[in-house]
């Protein structure tokens, strides 16, 4: 039985693992992602798994979220895992995604955490790059 992943104010290894597992399932379902990272939202005081998905621009966020929810439900067999509300989708044209892509190779940043950094003029509180 899948267990609920507690998304806390602090980034945990279980959150990183759950994020990577979901990415694998989403890729297996055919969802294309240009980037994926855990991003800290200071106002909400929580981390959100953030996915840059080209389909957001062409199909819209509703279809993308529907696909993600279907994968989450299938992955968890009806049991709570990573909560859908802890997932955010972005256009690959979103400022943060473009900044990350232009700062350096995303592959080189995979598995790295950047805290309190200014990337090409954009301040990022805290981010953990999955891919």
């Amino acid at each position, binding site marked *: 039985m899948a267990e609920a992943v507690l998304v806390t104010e602090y980034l945990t290894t279980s959150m990183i693992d759950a994020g990577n597992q979901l990415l694998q399932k989403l890729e297996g379902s055919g969802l294309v992602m240009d980037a994926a990272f855990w991003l800290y*939202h200071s*106002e*909400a*005081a*929580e981390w959100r798994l953030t996915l840059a998905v080209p389909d*957001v*621009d*062409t*199909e*819209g*966020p*509703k279809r993308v*979220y*529907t696909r993600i*929810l279907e994968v989450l439900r299938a992955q968890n067999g009806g049991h709570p895992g990573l909560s*859908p*509300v802890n*997932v*955010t*989708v972005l*256009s690959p*044209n979103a*400022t943060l995604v473009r900044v990350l892509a232009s700062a350096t190779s995303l592959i080189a940043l995979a598995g790295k955490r950047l805290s309190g950094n200014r990337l090409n003029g954009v301040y990022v509180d805290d981010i953990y790059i999955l891919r």
Partner: protein
Amino acid sequence: MHDVYTHDLTKLLKPAGLKAAHDQMLKSNIDFNVNWNIVKDWSEQDRYKPVITEIASKDMYAAIVDPKNGDCHG
């Protein structure tokens, strides 16, 4: 009181007294879950976005006004 000084919709659920009912809706209603995921991404910083696509705007509007599973129903 300090918790209401925020634009973050997720954080506002608790001081509004809606957290428990909202959690129940998320668990039991897939359409509401999808709509909330769209709405929760709204930020007051969106006004600085150079481009918001037509489909993203339509999805946001529909998620809010959906009479059955929208985020302004009730």
